[in-house]
């Protein structure tokens, strides 16, 4: 209905391969960017930043990361929490070891460290497949959490066993610590999210992405047409872990400020991210955003309704959250295995063909 595509045609492959080949979509995309960068920063307050925007942006990164591994390369991982922890602790160590190091660099380095760890735990993926691997990644989850718990060096021998982010400044604005302004940290995270999403898009539409998808869809055939399975899988693990590491880094340094590995990066986190990917849509970057948005907003809404409106006890709301999320996962897997992204795609097709049904 909204689409006007007559007279929209491509005269070069470069144009044909654009991310948003339809002008209408492109416009929508740029509008979103303008709002995100130009409008929200002036409206955002503490509550919005902390309750919704920051978690959304940060988990979006994590979701994209896991989606690259699971959605594009077909390797299921339940170790996201552990890898986020790596990102967080790497950040902590770097921040404390090199106080003058620029925060952006710190976070990127943390990502690289995580990528390295990810590759280590990705090595078995050559031998073991499907959910054997999924289970194997749990090993990473438990081992890493235990590691950061037991080895005091990681939390600089602090009595509490916690890690807490010291104040750091980027371009004259505090991005970590107590006095960081919501607008600032929002923009700080936004930049990472947008940049990484863009990179993810580039990777997935390029040869690298096709290798991943080939492995996902049929690994044997992939190898026979010339994909080196080890390299493909490891690169997926590396990139994915990098994203998740960055997410962990931001979560700890910018969002939480202080963290205890057990409850901040436990197995629940792994599931949270996995759910984002499933509900959002496997193999779709847009889906990662949708999933993150859903899993962040949904509990907030539920809380507002049940606790805020109905005045129920918080634990009841929490239980309902579990029930509904669990149910949703099952429903999505049954009804629409490709999640919100697929629903969006279908809706879009309908609009494009309007008034015709098909």
């Amino acid at each position, binding site marked *: 209905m909204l689409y006007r595509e007559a007279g929209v045609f491509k005269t*070069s*492959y*470069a144009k044909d*391969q654009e991310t948003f080949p339809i002008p209408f979509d492109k416009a929508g995309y740029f509008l979103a960017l303008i709002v995100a960068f130009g409008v929200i920063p002036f409206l955002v307050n503490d509550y919005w930043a902390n309750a919704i925007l920051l978690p959304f942006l940060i988990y979006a990164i994590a979701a994209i990361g896991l989606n690259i591994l699971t959605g594009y390369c077909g390797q299921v991982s339940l170790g996201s929490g552990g890898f986020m922890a790596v990102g967080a602790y790497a950040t902590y160590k770097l921040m404390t070891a090199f106080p003058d190091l620029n925060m952006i660099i710190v976070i990127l380095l943390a990502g690289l460290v995580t990528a390295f760890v990810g590759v280590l735990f990705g090595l078995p993926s050559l031998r073991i497949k499907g959910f054997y691997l999924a289970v194997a990644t749990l090993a990473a989850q438990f081992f890493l959490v235990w590691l950061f718990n037991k080895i005091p060096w990681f939390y600089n021998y602090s009595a509490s066993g916690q890690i807490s982010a010291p104040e750091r400044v980027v371009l004259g604005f505090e991005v970590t610590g107590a006095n960081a302004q919501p607008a600032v940290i929002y923009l700080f995270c936004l930049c990472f999210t947008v940049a990484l999403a863009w*990179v993810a898009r*580039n*990777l997935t*539409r*390029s*040869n*690298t*992405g*096709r*290798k991943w*998808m*080939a492995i*996902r*869809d*049929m690994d*044997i*055939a*992939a*190898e*026979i*047409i*010339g*994909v*080196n*399975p080890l390299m493909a899988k490891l*690169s997926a693990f590396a*990139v994915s872990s990098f994203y998740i590491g960055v997410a962990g880094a931001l979560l700890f340094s910018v969002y939480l400020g202080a963290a205890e590995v057990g409850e901040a990066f436990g197995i629940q986190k792994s599931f949270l991210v996995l759910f984002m990917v499933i509900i959002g849509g496997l*193999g779709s970057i847009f889906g990662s955003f949708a999933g993150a948005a859903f899993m962040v907003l949904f509990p907030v809404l539920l809380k507002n309704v049940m606790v805020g409106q109905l005045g129920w006890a918080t634990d009841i709301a929490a239980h309902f959250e579990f029930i509904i999320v669990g149910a949703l996962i099952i429903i999505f897997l049954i009804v629409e295995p490709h999640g919100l992204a697929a629903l969006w795609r279908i809706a879009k097709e309908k609009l494009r063909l309007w008034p015709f049904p098909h």
Partner: protein
Amino acid sequence: MNAVETFTTPDGRTIGGPVMEMRNITLRFGGVVAIKDISFDIREGEIRAIIGPNGAGKSSMLNVINGFYHPQEGEVFDHGKKRAPMRPYQIAHQGIARTFQNIALFKGMSTLDNIMTGRLTHMKSGILSHILWKGKAENEEVVNREKVERIIDFLEIQTIRKTPVGRLPYGLQKRVELGRALAAEPKLLLLDEPMAGMNVEEKEDMSRFILDVNDEFGTTIALIEHDMGVVMDIADRVVVMDYGKKIGDGTPDEVRSNQDVIDAYLGVAHD
């Protein structure tokens, strides 16, 4: 380079020296012997057919050629040089492409992307340039897209360019798979029952494509096929296998008059 005798086919194509040579290949799975001491060669520019009843070890033979199986005995010679044991993907980079008996397309990807994967042995840009996309990666993408589009045009599948292959009918999927193999511009193309489960019309199309490929690009082709009629029409030379053994080798006519072959086919004993 030692002189290789070349010969000319009835329709006037010259067949060169051996591209691939199997020498005394034996392949076992545990106790089962899939291939027993088989030798034959595939010559440059020819269409070489491997035929035989079910379970004769034909597919296993292809799997040996493209390195998916490693024979316990015997060697494979590539252009007269002994081939060191390699992983399948390395062999793909040596210029050997294939299609599969039961289609092995990437179901989640579009026709275009599937055929693009066929190009990856020719795409050199690395992950770093992919991250930035603009420049090297994009150019490479465009260049190879042009090549792929030629193939899409050649196989007359323009209309399904952007359809996910999972949704395509069987016949078309076979064609896309052939496209993916062609995209690799292989020096040797292996086709595992390219016409299995096709109706007469589809078979005619496929035969035409195979002949055109061999004719237009001068591609050497080794194919497995059940339909004797087809094989006799398009093959230059035929290897006949039965129970893992070679029971015949030669031009279609020679093979047709070979007694063992007749027995094997007129089903003395098994199907």
